């Protein structure tokens, strides 16, 4: 059977065909759809973990018990999972374990563009990198086989363009006759006390040597000799770009990006006149190849920052005198010259975060932010976020700020964090804040879902990945148990209530938590949220004061040429009846639509 599917869907299919029994992940673009697709295979226990570290630990447990396991995360998720990862490298596995890292060159949806190939080298773990969806499926299986054969976890690295591009995949039947998982005690291999770890480390070094040597004859590393004047070493989506724009040139396609097949690389270098590396982000191959004394060129003419694209590669190679007949660029006259209004992402109409940021802006708060849809509170007209570093950072950041500023400034510091992010790594920050008696205010924007990545459930949403009802962690109870004495729950669509709560808690000289309790407007689960009656603007009463525009609601439009000095209009197809704009109108011009 042939299907056109994304890299992420193909990884899910690969896990199924390879007999994976347990899959765990924390959602993160561009990796999220892997688990969303794996959950459709009933043979696999698939779940959202509270964070990536836990996801990997779940995978390790399943592996130790003898099952094949897949763990998936975005590139920065590996930072969170790094602690178990580095020691897992020493323990090795029983059932195969594949760790998918979905990198995001160009930062389409991320806070940095770290190159996670470096983790493979750092943790001494082999890494495969597929170049299309079919390879995503095949490499998932190969990764699990290598994992068992070499007693090591194996990385499968994708990038956004591999995870989110679709291409044709041929399906196969799932493997049979895998060993049945069962407890076998093997403490010396799995209890990493110094005495045991010292035994394991030399085995890790030996394993990587064996893999280096085996890499030279692996079919996933492929030398394609064509025109030998130029040879290009590349991997992943860059291989596709290179084949697209230089179909005549020789390539060495690396399917395993760590450890490198140095003999094969030497042979390729000897077979071509000029040698180049085309790789996104860091000079990962280039530095290792140069360290072998092989003459090669890469980052001296290709960018380190951002993703590579066909046109970026064409332009870079032109500086080396290597040109392509690809690209019939337009004539100057055809290219639009004027600057067009931009179209940044925006909070949805009816988003429960909007009113909170409006109030924070009015109160001139210094907001330490976090990762989620609400990071858009940074953008005008809400413009009320001063920091956003990583998952869960808002609370620790607020503590640090409060420790050094004056008492007056201290009263303006507010940490803002979503429910899922709070469960991920925010809880630790709050413990620290209470433990160390830091007087700051934390707002938990509880919209009952992990919204930014496309609405995934979490420990505070009451449902699992397979949509089964489960215990819904009570955030207010948790905060009280941590020791926060002042925990209040507010309706974020009620601006006065929100303002009053924020003013009081910001003034309070001890840690406090405010929880907003309205769900994401896009959560479709029946009974959770119903749209209120829609609103409209009475053009007779509208004075054109523009107060309602200060919340940046996509449903409200300014009509400059109507009324005395312009009027606002509410788009009935976009309005959700959240009521926030009505509360801003001092002329009672906004009301329920008739």
């Amino acid at each position, binding site marked *: 059977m042939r299907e056109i599917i994304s890299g992420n869907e193909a990884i899910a299919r690969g896990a199924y065909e390879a007999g994976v029994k347990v899959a765990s992940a924390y959602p993160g673009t561009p990796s999220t759809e892997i688990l969303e697709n794996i959950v459709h295979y009933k043979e696999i226990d698939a779940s959202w973990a509270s964070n990536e570290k836990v996801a990997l630990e779940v995978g390790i447990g399943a592996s130790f018990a003898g099952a094949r396991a897949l763990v998936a995360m975005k590139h920065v998720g590996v930072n969170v999972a790094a602690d178990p990862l580095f020691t897992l490298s020493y323990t090795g596995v029983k059932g195969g374990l594949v760790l998918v890292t979905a990198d995001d060159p160009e930062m389409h949806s991320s806070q940095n563009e770290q190159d996670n190939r470096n983790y493979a080298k750092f943790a001494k773990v082999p890494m495969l990198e597929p170049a299309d969806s079919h390879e995503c499926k095949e490499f998932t299986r190969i990764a699990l086989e290598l994992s068992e054969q070499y007693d090591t976890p194996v990385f499968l690295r994708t990038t956004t363009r591999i995870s989110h591009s679709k291409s044709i995949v041929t399906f196969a039947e799932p493997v049979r006759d895998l060993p049945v998982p069962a407890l076998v005690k093997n403490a010396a291999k799995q209890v990493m006390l110094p005495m045991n770890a010292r035994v394991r480390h030399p085995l890790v070094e030996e394993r990587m040597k064996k893999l280096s040597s085996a890499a030279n004859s692996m079919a996933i590393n492929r030398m394609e000799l064509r025109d030998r004047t130029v040879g290009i070493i590349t991997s992943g989506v860059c291989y596709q770009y290179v084949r697209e724009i230089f179909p005549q040139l020789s390539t060495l396609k690396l399917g395993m990006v760590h450890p490198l097949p140095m003999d094969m690389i030497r042979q390729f270098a000897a077979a071509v006149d000029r040698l180049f590396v085309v790789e996104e982000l860091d000079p990962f191959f280039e530095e290792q190849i140069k360290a072998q004394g092989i003459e090669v060129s890469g980052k001296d003419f290709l960018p380190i920052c951002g993703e590579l694209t*066909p*046109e970026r590669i064409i332009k870079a190679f032109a500086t080396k005198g290597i040109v392509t007949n690809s*690209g019939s660029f337009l004539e100057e006259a055809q290219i639009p010259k004027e600057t067009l209004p931009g179209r940044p992402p925006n909070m949805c109409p009816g988003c429960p975060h909007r009113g909170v940021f409006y109030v924070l802006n009015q109160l001139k708060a210094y907001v330490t932010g976090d990762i989620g849809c609400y990071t858009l509170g940074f953008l005008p007209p809400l413009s009320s976020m001063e920091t956003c570093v990583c998952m869960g950072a808002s609370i620790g950041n607020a503590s640090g700020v409060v420790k050094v500023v004056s008492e007056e400034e201290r009263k303006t510091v507010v940490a803002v964090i979503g429910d899922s992010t709070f469960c991920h790594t925010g809880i630790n920050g709050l413990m620290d804040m209470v433990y160390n008696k830091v007087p700051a205010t934390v707002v938990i924007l509880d919209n009952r879902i992990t919204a930014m990545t496309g609405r995934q459930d979490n420990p505070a949403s009451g449902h699992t990945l397979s949509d089964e009802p489960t215990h819904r962690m009570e955030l207010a109870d948790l905060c009280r148990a941590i020791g926060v004495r002042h925990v209040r729950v507010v309706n974020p669509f009620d601006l006065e209530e929100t303002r009053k709560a924020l003013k009081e808690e910001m003034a309070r000289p001890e840690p406090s938590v405010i929880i907003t309790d309205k769900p994401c407007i896009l959560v479709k689960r029946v009974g959770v949220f119903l749209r209120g009656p829609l609103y409209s603007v009475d053009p007779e009463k509208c004075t054109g004061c523009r107060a309602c525009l200060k919340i940046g609601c996509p449903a409200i439009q300014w009509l400059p040429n109507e009324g005395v000095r312009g009027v606002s209009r509410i788009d009935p197809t976009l309005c959700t009846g959240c009521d926030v704009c009505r509360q801003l109108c001092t002329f009672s011009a906004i009301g329920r639509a008739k």
Partner: protein
Amino acid sequence: MSERVTNILLVGVGGQGILLASEILSETFMLAGYDVKKSEIHGMSQRGGSVVSHVRYGKEVFSPLVPEGEGDILFGFELMETYRYLPLLKKGGAVVVNDLEISPPSVLMGQETYPQGLSEKIRERFPDFLLVDGQGIAKEAGNPRAANTVLLGAVSRRLDISEKYWMQALEKMVPLKALEVNRKAFQLGREFQG
């Protein structure tokens, strides 16, 4: 079967259904026996941001991205986004665009104005231009929400793919209860000549 790769770019605003339209295109090309690749960015851009989806088909397709200046068809769901992405087209490329303006935040707030006369400006640069009243024609077919299928129909006329594959793809991708309206919307779009 044509040896060369055909490049289609779908552009518009997050939430307009561009991903589904690009899925239907890709499915059709696969059914017709071609190699197909498509690429787009999910995530933040879904929140009302600008969206571009690349769809490519031919005997063998390498890059999932259409190289700049090689687009055969720019398939626009919104006027300003279509104008914005014109540089992706090749000389003599075709533009099929929905007659729809969606104001970005700065325009909604009255800080900037939506550019005027865009369809004329596009036509001047690319004479192979078709402006389609997607919503209006979809209403005629029975449901204004089938506008994207009208646009697909209009694009289909420019591609050398047998109608049966389009129908098979629609059957696979569109829910059964909406299938009849979508078939009709597709036909009306396919017949539409401006």
